[in-house]
């Protein structure tokens, strides 16, 4: 009795512990798997206002003259970033389907060259998939010499399929320094 009970319990314990450790490892991996899952989910549904970052196709769309949407432009910097960064105009009235161009102004305030990258975000989040850009300074890194400032263009249109309850779309850029040179 005693002799048979010992290996059974020890084996049962060992098997259970192995399974529970496996579950622990799987859940640890699941935490990391949430990163790509989140990105895919956001891209498919456009939930978090992250625009695709791709150049939109230029096929003409029917311009809806009867509808006016307000587009607001916001430029922000993280605390202590040595840039000047601002939109040329803060708001525009646009008709869906038509292309518009505006500019953002950026200036390097440091005394050395720096590379920056603008990261866009659109509010409300569900409007992100209806906001198309065919030209944008956010598509590429922007190199600035020390003290250099320039206007950077963005050309966009609003898809006429934009849900009718959306009357204002806000395009926000945060300008990040992405090189570590000189820091």
């Amino acid at each position, binding site marked *: 009795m005693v002799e048979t009970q010992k290996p059974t319990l020890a084996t049962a314990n060992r098997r259970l512990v192995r399974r529970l*450790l496996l579950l*622990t490892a799987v*859940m*640890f991996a699941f935490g990391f798997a949430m*990163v790509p899952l989140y990105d895919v989910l956001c891209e498919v*549904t456009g939930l978090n206002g992250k625009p695709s970052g791709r150049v939109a196709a230029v096929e003409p769309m029917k311009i809806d003259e009867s509808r006016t949407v307000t587009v607001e432009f916001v430029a922000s910097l993280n605390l202590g970033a040595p840039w000047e960064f601002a939109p040329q105009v803060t708001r525009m009235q646009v008709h869906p389907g038509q292309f518009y161009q505006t500019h953002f102004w950026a200036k390097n305030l440091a005394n050395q060259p720096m590379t920056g990258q603008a990261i866009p975000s659109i509010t409300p989040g569900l409007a992100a998939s209806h906001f198309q850009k065919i030209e944008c300074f956010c598509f590429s890194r922007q190199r600035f010499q020390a003290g250099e400032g320039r206007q950077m263009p963005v050309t966009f249109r609003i898809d006429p399929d934009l849900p009718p309850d959306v009357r204002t779309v806000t395009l926000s850029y945060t300008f*990040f320094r992405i090189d570590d040179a000189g820091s």
Partner: protein
Amino acid sequence: MSTASHTTDHDHDHDHDHDHGPARGLSRWLLTTNHKDIGTLYLLFSLTMFFIGGAMALVIRAELFQPGLQIVDPHFFNQMTTLHALVMIFGAVMPAFVGLANWLIPMMVGAPDMALPRMNNWSFWIMPFAFTLLLSTLFMPGGGPAGGWTLYPPLVLQTGNAFPFVILAVHMMGASSIMGAINIIATILNLRAPGMTLMKMPLFVWTWLITAFLLIAVMPVLAGTVTMLLTDKFFGTSFFNAAGGGDPVMFQHIFWFFGHPEVYIMILPAFGIISQIIPTFARKPLFGYASMVYATASIAFLSFIVWAHHMFTVGMPLAGELFFMYATMLIAVPTGVKVFNWVSTMWRGAMTFETPMLFAIAFVVLFTIGGFSGLMLAIAPADFQYQDTYFVVAHFHYVLVPGAVFSIMAAAYYWLPKWTGHMYNEKLGKLHFWLSVVGVNVLFFPQHFLGLAGMPRRIPDYALQFTEFNMVSTVGAFLFGFSQLFLLYNVIQTIRGGAKATDQVWEGAQGLEWTLSSPPPYHTFTTAPEIE
């Protein structure tokens, strides 16, 4: 392992093996693999942390006694709010429940010890190191963590030298919890006495079994996400950095995927404790045992699909807000089942009101208040007003202090005579109860009003019109805080001596642990008991 060796050595060393008591001196505690010793260590550790975290809370309340900045500078205030939460959650409440599990589960299921006694030793002894590490950050350049216990980036990445120490401390606490959980599951599933079927287990054992699975499911997720914070800060990854294509909001999703089940990790064992105590003092079996088990399991399941109610204001689409709102409200159903079962157990019972019962009844009433304010917070449109105000603070303190903490105190008074063999001082216990229950309500009830009027949380200063309620709250905090010294005194006195407790201790107590002597011998149930 040692359980197994017990059975093999049975034939040869029966007498020697059966009678040996604890080793002497410090090595007894350092090297012990005995579930009762480790349970004691966990409980004493938790009591220490309760006083450290409580002292931090009193610093916070002292600063908030008046508007303006009086006692501490804002950066230190922020460190206090952050560390108070981390110490109370990971250092006081969770280890107390693990300590109770260690002491009680083997005695309740008729097992000789925990299934993995050496790992048990290890999972306890990680904790003092983790908390030494965490608390030492207060003395580091740049101070301790000050961005809130939720560790949201990018704010938390501004922590000074303390940052990697905090992350390592969280990793260690997580490892300890996971090992503890594995041990508890192995004990419950493999070491039950013959005849102790799952549906005969005491509810404390059931709630811990479910809690242990929650721990294994979510602590690794926390470990993963704080690892991402660490690599974002030091190794140039961009999980949560928008400049590199990451998203800080994603941290909140992953964190609360851990964080909401964590909330239930801190309350399900409390449900188990209350379900043990109320039948004893109502002298009636628990009403609706099976429904209690199913309600606990449904709460655990629902906890995985409601996390985004912590982040209604991050900018979710309407469908998301509605889903998380309704899923959250659904939790009120199994919780209501539990509350009604406790009330029905008391209904027409021959009730007496010893200290554990007083704490248990206060738990039912005050936890329900916390549950109701939770329902208010679940309403997404209303949450836009309540978000980040003192209303949230009042809500989670109602479920955690007169909820989880009262259940732990009830458990301490209830089982202390069993553990020590001495009755505690009932007069002092009642005094402690009444001071605590008055103190806790004076402390937290006004915070509902402050929150509804718009006072934000985690700010060391406030607008003048909030002064009176803050003063009342601070008075309550000091009353509640200092009345815990009665608990401390009572516990020490009971350990040192006192009236001899009978084996059953309480007239209405049912269960295997009450068939043992008080105090129980160092090794119990080396031969499995008979279950009828």
